[in-house]
């Protein structure tokens, strides 16, 4: 039915899943299409650090056999996916993109990987990232930096750079990222895909290399809200190995198919995200405002909200650097030469005082309480995902890039679910993301609003041309 490789690789999970279930699409054929595509394009994109060619075909063959025998496991059965290289994978190197862990081959799967395996997903490989999930990628790291498929000279975002790049370029059907200060939503925004950071505590961190224990959140990156929901369904929920998931509900993350948004109230914190933001590019502002207008036209009420404590979002940086230093202290002393430029940021964490850390945690509580009050009055918040589109690799203004994460980090501090969806392109053809934030545990509402937005727009359907000059 689907002969052309590109068409296969750009099927949605929803579409591919139905075809596989009905035995109209072979998981082996689908997996081989992705492996061919990785071979053709990843020499430019560097999105994978490990491609699991043999085991992926083996896994797809097993899926095909199971399904033919009536043992259909889940909507992810036979679906080719990939994982950021900080998810422990049994017998497969897990490096966190660092020489410090270059020889690390775990003897167990992280909980999220276990759950995806149980769901029957086919693991294509491990994906590039910023070293230890911090920084923006650098040539001094263990592997080359992943590139943005919309323009190879631009960042794909960080830290889930390979996840953003591979998912956008059709080198996997969906991927796993992780988000401590915006590392799922930033790359989703820069690469024109949909990435959700779930509520803190919804998805297990067991077996995931930490950046900051009290902030790290695992989540899916996909090409639509509907597909992200299908991934989340497989990985969410309590895990005895991670006590932070103790309150996680058993929920349904299939998107609701709503006809309109009547009765929903959308909060827009204009003072923090739109007004007097010197680095907010006009095209980003215009695209997100257009997105808000689309939601309003679907029947939602728009209300301006004020969250003054957001100006203390630096608390995220203080907590992240302090906790990261605690994790890396021993290696920073013993083998400094094995770290790339991220080492300098970790060292800054060693200079923060306990009183800085405690004050940051208090500020975190203040931000969380204020956001909680606002979320009692509205259903979701809408903001730009990032003030600007993907910077060039040779733009070394680290301060500007780092400051852009202030649009994402408040929702790491508060733990609220937040998702980036594509909402436009700038004058240079670089993608723009719109952030949808929900109340605690209300991922389904966030996903469903993202879905109705995507049913009424085409931004998420745009594909990068991958028309590289010397491509054979």
């Amino acid at each position, binding site marked *: 039915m689907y002969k052309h490789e590109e068409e296969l690789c750009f099927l949605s999970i929803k579409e591919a899943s139905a075809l596989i279930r009905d035995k109209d699409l072979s998981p082996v054929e689908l997996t081989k299409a992705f492996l061919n595509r990785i071979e053709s394009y990843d020499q430019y994109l560097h999105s994978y650090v490990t491609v699991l060619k043999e085991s992926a075909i083996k896994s797809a063959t097993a899926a095909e056999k199971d399904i033919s025998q009536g043992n259909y496991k889940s909507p992810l059965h036979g679906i080719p996916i990939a994982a950021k290289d900080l998810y422990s994978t049994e017998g497969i190197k897990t490096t966190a993109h660092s020489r410090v862990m270059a020889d690390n081959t775990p003897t167990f799967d992280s909980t999220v990987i276990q759950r995806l395996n149980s769901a029957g997903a086919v693991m294509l490989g491990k994906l590039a990232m910023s070293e230890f999930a911090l920084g923006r990628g650098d040539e001094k790291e263990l592997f080359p930096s992943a590139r943005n498929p919309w323009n190879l000279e631009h960042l794909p975002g960080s830290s889930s750079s390979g996840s953003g790049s591979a998912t956008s370029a059709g080198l996997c059907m969906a991927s796993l990222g992780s988000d401590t200060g915006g590392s799922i939503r930033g790359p989703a925004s820069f690469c024109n895909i949909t990435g959700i950071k779930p*509520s*803190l*505590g*919804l998805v297990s961190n067991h077996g995931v290399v930490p950046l900051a224990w*009290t*902030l790290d959140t695992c989540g899916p990156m996909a090409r639509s809200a509907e597909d992200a929901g299908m991934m989340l369904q497989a990985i969410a929920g309590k895990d005895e190995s991670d006590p*932070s*998931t103790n*309150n*996680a*509900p058993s*929920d349904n993350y299939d998107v609701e198919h709503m006809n309109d948004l009547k009765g929903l109230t959308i909060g827009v914190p204009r003072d923090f995200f739109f007004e007097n933001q010197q680095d907010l590019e006009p095209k980003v502002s215009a695209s997100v405002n257009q997105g808000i207008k689309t939601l309003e036209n679907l029947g939602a009420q728009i209300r301006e909200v004020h969250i003054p404590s957001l*100006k*203390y979002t*630096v*608390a995220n*940086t*203080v*907590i992240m*650097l302090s906790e990261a230093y605690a994790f890396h202290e021993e290696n*920073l*002393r013993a083998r*400094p030469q094995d770290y790339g430029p991220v080492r*300098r*940021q970790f*060292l*800054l964490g*060693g*200079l*923060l*005082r306990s*009183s*800085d850390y*405690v*004050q*940051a*945690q*208090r*500020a*975190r*509580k*203040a931000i*969380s*309480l204020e956001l909680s009050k606002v*979320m009692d009055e509205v259903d979701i918040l809408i903001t730009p995902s990032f003030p600007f589109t993907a910077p060039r690799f040779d733009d070394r203004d680290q*301060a500007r890039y780092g400051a852009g994460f202030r649009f994402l980090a408040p929702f790491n*501090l508060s*733990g609220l679910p937040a998702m980036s969806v594509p909402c436009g392109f700038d004058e240079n053809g670089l993608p723009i993301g719109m952030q949808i934030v929900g*109340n*605690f*545990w*209300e991922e389904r509402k966030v996903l469903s609003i993202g879905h109705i937005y995507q049913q009424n727009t085409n931004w998420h359907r745009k594909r990068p041309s991958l028309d590289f000059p010397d491509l054979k």
Partner: protein
Amino acid sequence: MQNSDGTLLDLDGFHHLVKQANLNISDEEINKLYKAYLPLEKQVRLLHQMDLGDLSTSTAFLANKTKNDTK
């Protein structure tokens, strides 16, 4: 992270701070680190100026809400 009189640390003070923290890095690296440290110090200072009353940290950073709490 700042001097007791509230001024930002100068480079000499920063060298002292790094030595105290026992980070085990060279003088050249300390100078580079100082450039990254100053903007962070300014922001952390703002954080300490927040009026947080008697707000505790408790364990608010953990997901301590249940699904019913948001209904």
